[in-house]
């Protein structure tokens, strides 16, 4: 069975060449079925009621946490369910960040998504911190040779993307972790673009925080995870206050629940979490070595095709080493929105714009790029349709 055939939206629209999984992936039938089953047979609030339905809902929700933890080789109490990567990073910026003092330093890079820039700028302004930036190389990688220069004894956190959402470059996390630990800094990883591309042993990375979203890994929108080491989370104060994150409340004071509940104030996205658990289960059943090979083959096909289109400049590694199938390119002075609009005529769904990475666009003096993302359901026909569409875009807009 083709992987594509497991995705109802793709089956219902055979002419669609969906290459925007870097923004939102599609959802397989098994995940949709799981969410539908929950909403039609178990829907109730969690951690509250004593009636059977509420107990079933709680079991389904916490069972999803177990599945997520298993998929990422983590302990269940290290899985904090959030609304996505952005919320996870903001949680750290507030909770971990409030323990920082004026003059402390945070290190990010020039290629980060705005979600891994703005929370740190806001924290800098709240706490009087120093925000330092690792530069990006000409081929769209974080320049790790600058680590020695940028990290100091005042560095408290290094926050980097595992894979760039623009260039597709994969960072050498082992090198980042070694450098950060040598000066006593914690490491936060924005894993939003990494998690759709196969299983990952998060604790083995040696990082302190790992943030990711469900909607890029075949789950519903509005659900995500902050993974934090148990001791790290235990030492952190809550971010949002409300229901579910408490042990005991009086009018004078509150005793907080232990992690992960401490960081999950309010009624959570229950069906989203159950969907994310189902997505982990679906991903567990795939042949990832074969998929990884196919994704790289298609990435190579796309890069080769782009090299033949006059005026195209790829923003990112031209080779297949240490990269994922996220390929961004500029076509002369043509605006990426115009390119994406013409690609749509060919049934090709591609993202055009700055991809929430305006500092990276400034670095390369670009107003934006067109981006294609390769996923397990991507096929050669999708890449070929993109290349045919580009020919027309060049002809019309040239």
């Amino acid at each position, binding site marked *: 069975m083709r992987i594509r055939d497991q995705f109802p939206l793709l089956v219902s629209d055979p002419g669609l060449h969906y290459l925007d999984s870097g923004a939102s992936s599609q959802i397989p039938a098994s995940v949709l079925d799981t969410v539908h089953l929950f909403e039609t047979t178990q829907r109730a609030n969690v951690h509250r009621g004593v009636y059977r339905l509420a107990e079933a809902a709680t079991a389904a929700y916490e069972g999803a946490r177990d599945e997520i933890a298993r998929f990422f080789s983590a302990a269940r109490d290290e899985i904090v369910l959030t609304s996505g990567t952005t919320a996870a990073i903001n949680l750290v910026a507030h909770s971990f960040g409030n323990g920082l003092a004026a003059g402390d330093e945070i290190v990010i890079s020039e290629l980060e998504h705005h979600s891994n820039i703005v929370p740190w700028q806001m924290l800098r302004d709240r706490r009087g911190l120093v925000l330092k930036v690792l530069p990006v190389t000409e081929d769209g990688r974080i320049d790790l040779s600058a680590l020695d220069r940028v990290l100091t004894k005042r560095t408290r956190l290094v926050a980097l993307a595992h894979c760039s959402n623009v260039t597709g470059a994969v960072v050498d996390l082992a090198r980042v972790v070694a450098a950060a630990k040598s000066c006593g800094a914690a490491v936060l990883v924005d894993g939003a673009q990494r998690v759709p591309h196969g299983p990952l042993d998060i604790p083995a990375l040696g990082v302190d925080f790992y943030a990711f979203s469900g909607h890029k890994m075949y789950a519903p929108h509005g659900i995500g995870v902050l993974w934090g080491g148990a001791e790290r989370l235990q030492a952190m104060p809550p971010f949002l206050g409300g229901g579910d994150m408490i042990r005991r409340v009086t009018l004078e004071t509150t005793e907080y629940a232990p992690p992960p509940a401490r960081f999950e104030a309010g009624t959570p996205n229950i069906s989203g979490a159950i969907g994310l658990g189902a997505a982990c289960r679906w991903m567990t059943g795939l042949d990832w070595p074969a998929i990884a090979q196919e994704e790289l083959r298609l990435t190579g096909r796309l890069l080769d095709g782009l090299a033949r289109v006059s005026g195209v400049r790829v923003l990112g590694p031209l080779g297949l080493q240490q990269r994922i199938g996220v390929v961004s390119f500029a076509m002369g002075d043509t*605006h990426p929105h115009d390119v994406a*609009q013409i690609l749509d005529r060919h049934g090709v769904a591609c993202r055009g714009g700055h991809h929430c990475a*305006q500092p990276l666009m400034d670095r390369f003096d670009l107003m934006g790029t067109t981006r294609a993302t390769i996923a397990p359901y991507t096929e050669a026909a999708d890449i070929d349709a993109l290349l045919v569409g580009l020919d027309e875009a060049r002809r*019309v807009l040239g």
Partner: protein
Amino acid sequence: MSDELYQEALLKLAKEAPRKGRLEPNDASVRLDNPLCGDRVRIDLRLEGERITDLAHEVRGCVLCQAAGGIIALRAIGFDRAGVARLCEDVDRVLAGGTPELEELAAFRPVVPHKSRHDCVRLPFQALRQAAKA
């Protein structure tokens, strides 16, 4: 349909727009960014009172945004604040599916069903309006 967007008239407005670049010295200059797509527009005006006597536009954006800059370059000289306001209302009219008073704005009719692109058209007019304090 997307293919209707890029008609000859629109492409011509974008490519052949006069008064591209900066106007120095100027009496008013406004730069606006579209945070969603990164389009960036600057409108420089020379004014006598509130009447526009000369202008320049610098558009780093899509064809729609460039064409909008082109129409401003062709038509806005001589306008006072009320004229600029009327022009902007005419843009809103065409994007709402109506018939514009200014013939060139009809080039934007194919944009009507593409709501995500309306701001591409509006951005230069918004910059003009701010610069003219209309």
